């Protein structure tokens, strides 16, 4: 592998890692919001009962 190809592979790996990190923040946020919404709904129902 030439120096330039090696460097591009290294850079793309790092861009991939940064994108994955950003994506996990989105995914964790969505999962938590969904769990909170379902728990709030369940608690709201119990309170009204």
């Amino acid at each position, binding site marked *: 592998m030439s*120096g330039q190809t090696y460097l591009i592979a290294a850079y793309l790996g*790092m*861009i991939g*890692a940064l994108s994955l*990190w950003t994506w996990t*923040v989105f995914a964790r*946020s969505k999962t*938590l919001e969904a769990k909170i919404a379902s728990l709030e709904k*369940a*608690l709201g129902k119990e309170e009204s009962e």
Partner: protein
Amino acid sequence: MKIRGEALAILGLAGASLTFWLGMSWAPSVSIDAFKAPDAQRIFYWHVPSAWAAMIAFGMLFVGSLVWFFKRSEWAWRLHVASSEAGLATGLMCVWSGCIWGAAEWGVPWDWTDIRLNTFAILTLLSLYLVLGRRSQPDGIETRDTFSAFGMYGFVLVPVTYIATRLWQIRHPGPVVATSEGSLNSDMGTVLLIGAISFTVLIIGHVMAGMRLTKLEMHLEDLQSRFEEESR
């Protein structure tokens, strides 16, 4: 208008990708006489901004740890959590890109005698310890105090890392910006500046998003305990 951390993180990521493209295609090549591996030098446009971003994250970790320790402020704890994760990610990126460059330029990815390399690695390991430790320990005042103490005392390594190449230049190159001896080409400086701004936006976005995530996690834990109590 409320700016979401996620939006800033994506903007920073786009800027980092632009830096990659400019670094590969627009920035001038370095002299073959000065560098053994001139192609590998182009990793500098990510290596330096990621180190800069890691230092910002370690600075925020210090502030979060200090304010939590003395004021018991919830936002400060959330800053501690988010900045330790951000410091770990950018610290690993800096170490990884440095190893790639070192392998090409020096023939070895690491030098255990170089102060700059080793103090920065310890800072990154400290953030790894904080991230993993927080996940394995139950949340509470004592746990937070312990991790905050590490966040505060660990910050001592930030100025040591900064001045390391100025005082003891062993293997890591000396400073090329913010120094009277700097000799950075203006096009190189422009790409480096775009990289530094992009990584700053990225790290601020991630810390904001991380603080929001920690708030959501705390709210969820609170709701879960309420739900368990009411289910009994």
